[in-house]
């Protein structure tokens, strides 16, 4: 362990340089290490501890598709105000392993404080350009018993830097490792203590101060990930059947629901493949359950046949589709917004559908719950289109309000002469289920008559197609409006959808212009009627999308006839950072 006096020397140097991060109300911390080093544990720990101390917190991770090795990182923002987007800037960088510098080089500057052991920096790294503080994470951990504890040393060090009391960390460690042996708990406590001492010494006698003050409201807020919000939303929507096949980045939703299945009377089944998962979900709805499938690109590709089945049977279905870059296996653990067209055009034959795209953790909850009611009411597929970035990001939000949440079931008790596909003006036939009433419920993937039996009556075929498509006109009336953020008399309109919401909002706020507004779409199909009016009001339109071809821009053109002037696209596998959106927007607006 380095001598405290040597560390204190570093602190004095830092103070002399008057580091800008000290004056920030918003500090960005990044931890890098190999897969398997417990980076996710650090993320969980720090976000929870910061939140418990009343700080606003945001965290997101980017990781490689492997169990051990490579370079993974987690980005954590701590602030006195709400923070909800990824930023490129790094104020404090903690390297737990070598080889990470190239991974973050574009994000660090001379103002970044780097805590690392010398070996982790690599030979070709010019230390003199940066504020490097030698912290022997591995050695401290080995002295305690195993290098595995180095992540908790890092947790302690960061807590120390922020003046968080050791007691708070110890309590959390005991809770987090409650299932482990007392020895393991004790060693983690020791690791945290050693790290904390280090961090506290760095701060010295309170002379390096972060101007981050706790916000009393944070205490009452909840801290959760996008995946947990989708899972909770599903429960609130009355989901009682989840069938899925594990696939990144959708898996955390399946895991969350499986863990809470029993207490909510839910069936959670890991199917043999996505084909089975989808067909099970359709069968479950047929028998009166409210089922969801959760998957990602390639898995959804296998579900497409079953999606078409749900459309023909007019059985509701909720599809949680967490996007990742494709084609094929693509980048399994990365993010993209490139499956809008997949969701939109999936399935043979012509049938209507609804696609919701939450941009925030709140929307992930409320829209997922709404998806079940829409699916049930109109007997159509409803998508909840998320992505790796939203699923794996955390921040604190106001607790979800359940007062407006209700489960609308649209099941009828059948009479003896029941006809499952009765032709109706709005296209929706009252939905009976087997064993509830005196009628029989017949559904068929073939074209069918009003009773559900196979038919080749071609006049009836036309009536059935028209009936199914009429539902689109019916549910259009319930389209979720896009949200306008900014002045009503905007000259420039920045359009976004899904998870890029917070990066765009923060970027536009940073530009501080009174003529720019944002239009955020949380329903991307069908588009709201007002879309054209919003666009026509702008002198200039810019769309921000996490894909290579501007998929929403194409839909807007198709439904409004309006060309979007400029497109800010990204498809590297990483999500938009605030600075990047701001820079690219500024470049267009000047």
């Amino acid at each position, binding site marked *: 362990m380095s001598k405290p006096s040597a560390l204190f020397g570093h602190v004095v140097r830092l103070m002399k340089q008057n580091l800008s991060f000290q004056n920030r109300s918003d500090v960005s911390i990044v931890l890098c290490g190999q897969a398997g080093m417990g980076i996710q544990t650090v993320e969980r720990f720090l976000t929870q501890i910061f939140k*418990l101390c009343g700080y606003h917190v945001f965290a997101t991770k980017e990781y490689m598709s492997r169990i051990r090795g490579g370079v993974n990182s987690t980005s954590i923002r701590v602030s006195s105000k709400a923070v909800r987007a990824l930023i490129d800037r790094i104020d404090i960088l903690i390297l737990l392993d070598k080889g990470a510098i190239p991974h973050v080089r574009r994000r660090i500057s001379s103002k970044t404080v780097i805590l690392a052991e010398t070996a982790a920096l690599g030979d070709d790294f010019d230390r003199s350009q940066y504020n490097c503080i030698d912290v022997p994470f591995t050695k401290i951990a080995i002295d305690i018993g195993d290098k595995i504890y180095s992540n908790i040393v890092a947790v302690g060090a960061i807590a120390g830097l922020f003046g968080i009391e050791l007691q708070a960390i110890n309590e959390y460690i005991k809770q987090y490792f409650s299932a482990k042996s007392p020895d393991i708990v004790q060693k983690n406590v020791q690791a945290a203590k050693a790290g904390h001492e280090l961090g506290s010494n760095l701060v010295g006698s309170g002379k390096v101060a972060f101007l981050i003050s706790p916000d009393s409201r944070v205490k*009452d807020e*909840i*801290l959760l990930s996008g995946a*947990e919000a989708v899972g*909770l939303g599903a*429960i*609130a929507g009355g989901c*009682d*059947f989840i*069938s899925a096949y594990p696939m990144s980045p959708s898996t955390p939703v399946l895991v969350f629901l499986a863990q809470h*299945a*029993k*207490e*909510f*009377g839910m*069936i959670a089944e890991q*199917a*043999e*493949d996505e*084909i*089975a*998962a989808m*067909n*099970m979900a*359709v*069968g*479950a709805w*047929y*028998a*009166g*359950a*409210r*089922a969801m499938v959760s998957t990602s690109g390639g898995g959804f590709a296998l579900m497409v*046949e*079953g999606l078409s*089945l749900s459309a023909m*049977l007019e059985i509701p279905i909720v599809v949680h589709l967490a996007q990742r870059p494709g084609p094929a296996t693509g980048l399994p653990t990365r993010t993209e917004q490139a499956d809008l067209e997949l969701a939109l055009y999936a399935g043979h034959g012509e049938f209507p559908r609804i696609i919701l795209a939450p941009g925030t953790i709140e929307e992930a909850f409320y829209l997922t719950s709404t998806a079940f009611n829409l699916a049930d009411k109109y007997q159509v597929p409803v998508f909840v289109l998320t992505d790796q970035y939203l699923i794996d990001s955390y921040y604190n939000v106001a*607790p*979800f309000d*359940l007062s407006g949440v209700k*489960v609308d*079931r649209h099941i009828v008790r059948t009479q003896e002469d029941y006809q499952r596909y009765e032709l109706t003006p709005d296209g929706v036939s009252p939905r009976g*289920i*087997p*064993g*509830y*009433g*005196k*009628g*029989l*419920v*017949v*559904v*068929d*993937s*073939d074209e069918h008559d009003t009773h*559900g*039996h*196979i038919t080749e009556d071609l006049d009836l075929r036309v009536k059935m197609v028209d009936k199914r498509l009429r539902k689109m006109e019916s549910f259009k009336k319930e389209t979720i409006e896009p949200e306008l953020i900014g002045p009503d008399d905007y000259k420039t309109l920045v359009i976004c959808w899904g998870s890029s919401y917070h990066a765009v909002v923060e970027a536009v706020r940073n530009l501080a212009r009174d003529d720019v507004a944002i239009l955020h779409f949380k329903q991307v199909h069908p588009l709201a009627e007002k879309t054209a009016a919003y666009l026509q009001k702008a002198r200039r339109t810019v769309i921000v999308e996490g894909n290579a071809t501007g998929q929403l821009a194409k839909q807007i053109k198709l439904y409004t006839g309006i060309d979007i002037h400029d497109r800010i696209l990204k498809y590297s596998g990483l999500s938009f950072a605030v600075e990047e959106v701001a820079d690219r927007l500024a470049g267009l607006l000047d």
Partner: protein
Amino acid sequence: MDTQVFDMGGIDIAWCPGCGNFGILNALKKALAELEIEPTNLVLVSGIGQAAKAPHYFRTNVFNGLHGRALPPATAIKASNPSLMVIAESGDGDMYGEGGNHFLHTIRRNPDITNIVHNNMVYGLTKGQASPTSLRGFRTPVQVAGVFLEPFNPLAVAIALDASFVARAYSGDMQQTKEILKKAITHKGYALVDVLHPCVSYNKLSTYQWFREHTYYLDDSHDPRDRNEAFKKATETEKLPLGVFYISPERATFEENTGIYKENRQPLYARKVDMGRLAGLIEKFRT
């Protein structure tokens, strides 16, 4: 109960005259009538193919889904409302070919459903190609040199997977087929009944006469609790045994294993979300 409760009446049946499917249809109606199963409490689930049309000739609840996909929805229907009687019925191409993966895993899952497979060793609806169970040497417009793949042995596979109930019947013998179906339907857990039957249009190899000459019934000396013996019987090819091959030691069904019916027998549709509990769960994210 009269079998007429299951009759559709006045319908055009798409099967060829003399098709073995008629024998299975009638045997199943009789079995269900004798077991006093109400049409409103029964769901017939099928895939696609000539056999998969059977539910349309039945007055009951029907889920006629996709080719190869009868078992996943059948499992889910039973799990969503265990009070329903669920029968998944389709052909050999559907269940053993397109749906092969579901066949394997449904056996492992062990829902309390009956799986009837019309096995005529040929694809009828697509006009005469080989099926997974076609015998070696069987010539078709596609398998022009004759089938050279090893025929799929559904019974041996099912017994290898320790399926809950495994039987084989022959549609030419309606009385025995009905009895075997009754045993399968009343069995608790997954029950497979592979029903051999001739295809009068496309299988000139396995005809009524061929089946008469190449089948025999297991007698009382066969102990269906003896898995090794059952497996041995399932691998016989000279003459195909008929009857109940195997019954596994009783184990929990899929529905039971979900754990959600232990304290509450209500089907999913009759339940309400416990919003108080949900509020409690949300509350946990505060700390």
